[in-house]
């Protein structure tokens, strides 16, 4: 079976919330000689991208997406057993639900998918003050911060993070990604809170952070 066929089957397992079936499938793929990195790049990643399209078409629920993120995590842990050994990562990213926001599920899914895509994810959890997110980003040399909020009231707290980034002269060095249900419902909030970009779902996060990283590198003249 070719990688894209494994990927088709993995997508089916994700849609049907079949975690054990997915684990068996990945095991079979590895046993059939597909290299772990190939599993991530050519089996898991395409499945995730297609899952994202289904999410955008509103045919996937939170419960299904949750299981899909667990399957992605399972696959990642199986194919990259010790991430600390990995010398080739895309870079560091800091994530957190902004101050007063306690809706962690989406953020955790984003973290899982970004890890699966090769980012070093520093997830600071719920209710994180803007200052803490920025300090961590500086400490780990992150190119972007992902601030999550589910509701409009808490989304507006992200404005403080925007202000801090700008005041510290880091506008071109640290990009601000925003996400959460409210941004899907009201896309204009992204610019209202000072976000540099958003993704409609966890699956789209990798593409977003790649773009933001490229913007940082271009500004800094990094090849």
């Amino acid at each position: 079976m070719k990688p894209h066929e494994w990927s088709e089957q993995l997508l089916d397992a994700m849609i049907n919330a079949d975690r054990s079936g997915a684990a068996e499938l990945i095991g079979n793929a590895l046993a059939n000689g597909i290299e772990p990195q190939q599993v991530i790049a050519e089996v898991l990643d395409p499945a995730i991208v297609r899952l994202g399209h289904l999410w955008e078409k509103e045919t996937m629920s939170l419960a299904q997406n949750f299981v899909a993120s667990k399957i992605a995590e399972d696959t990642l842990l199986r194919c990259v057993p010790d991430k600390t050994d990995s010398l080739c990562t895309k870079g560091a990213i800091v994530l957190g639900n902004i101050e007063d926001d306690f809706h962690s599920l989406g953020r955790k899914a984003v973290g899982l998918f970004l890890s699966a895509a090769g980012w070093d994810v520093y997830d600071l959890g719920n209710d994180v003050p803007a200052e803490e997110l920025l300090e961590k980003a500086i400490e780990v040399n992150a190119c972007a911060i992902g601030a999550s909020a589910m509701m409009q009231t808490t989304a507006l707290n992200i404005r403080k993070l925007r202000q801090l980034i700008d005041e510290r002269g880091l506008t071109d060095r640290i990009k601000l990604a925003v996400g959460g249900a409210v941004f899907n419902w009201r896309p204009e909030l992204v610019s209202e809170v000072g976000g540099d970009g958003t993704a409609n779902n966890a699956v789209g996060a990798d593409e977003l952070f790649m773009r933001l990283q490229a913007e940082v590198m271009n500004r800094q003249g990094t090849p």
Partner: protein
Amino acid sequence: MATLMGQPVDRLPVFAVLGAYGAKLTGVNLRTLYSDAAAYSAGQEAVLQTFGFDLVMTPFIYTAISEAFGGETAWSESQAPNMKRPGIKTAAAALLHPLPNPEQTAGLSVVLEATRRLADRYKEQVPIIAVLPGPGIMPSLIIGLEQWIETVMFEEELAGRLLDHTAPFFVSWANALLAAGADCLVVTEGTAAAEIAPRSLFAERFLPYLTTTFTQISGPKVLHQTGGRITHNLDLFSGLAGLVGVAVGSRDDLSEARRLIGPDMNLIGNLDNLSLPALSAGQISEMSRSCLDAAAPSGHYILSNAGADIPLTTPPENLRAMLSAAADYSAEISGNR
């Protein structure tokens, strides 16, 4: 209330979820509003006097439930409180936790006292609406949403045992609210929303708990989608005991909802909560009119926002625009008769 009970009415009713808004009108902070039954009751009185919507509502504060199971609350000045962290970490541990007695649990007893005060003041004048989480989503307030979804998806038998365990609390809480004076219960069942669970999961694992618990609760009930879409499940609700209405989401199509739910069930909604603070009064009026044009002609319709508490930043004129739109519509209809 007449609309909810299928009786004739003299005008189109309009509902708005304005629990927290009472704090804005009376100048108290939200913690005081939700911790002091007198302050909450005063807030509802101010809401009613200021706007004249066709209801008062008992405190819509789910952290009172999470606290009853040991959870911690995050208070805010801009929104109703949220659960900061659940009191119990796993479904297995939750099975060992005794169910709270509503009358003897701090936050729940405040809700009941506020309900009694509202009943003393408004019984038979405007409907007193109580809001509570449905039996399927209730465990998320006890162990957290993520843990609950994980249990549902990966430990079906354990999830069923937890639902069995907590269902009696849902029933006792609902009946306590009715006994305290609530006229109607709005049951927010997140698992019925398309954004939370697929139809098959809802139908197989959660709907049976609505069916069995509703028969144990004597008052009228409205099923609420908690802000998501519910059209995909509307045909499943016809057998629920005492169901008098369904609150549809802002992205549900009112005409399609009517087709699926049948001619006699009340539909409530479906103004977008997030639009209310963001748009002008004129735009809210147009949106309200659009809802009315789509749903009012077939009757059994209540114009309402389609989510939880209306954001505190919503200008009063936007709320009045909802009322005006319904009044204008009613006047036009009666003028055409």
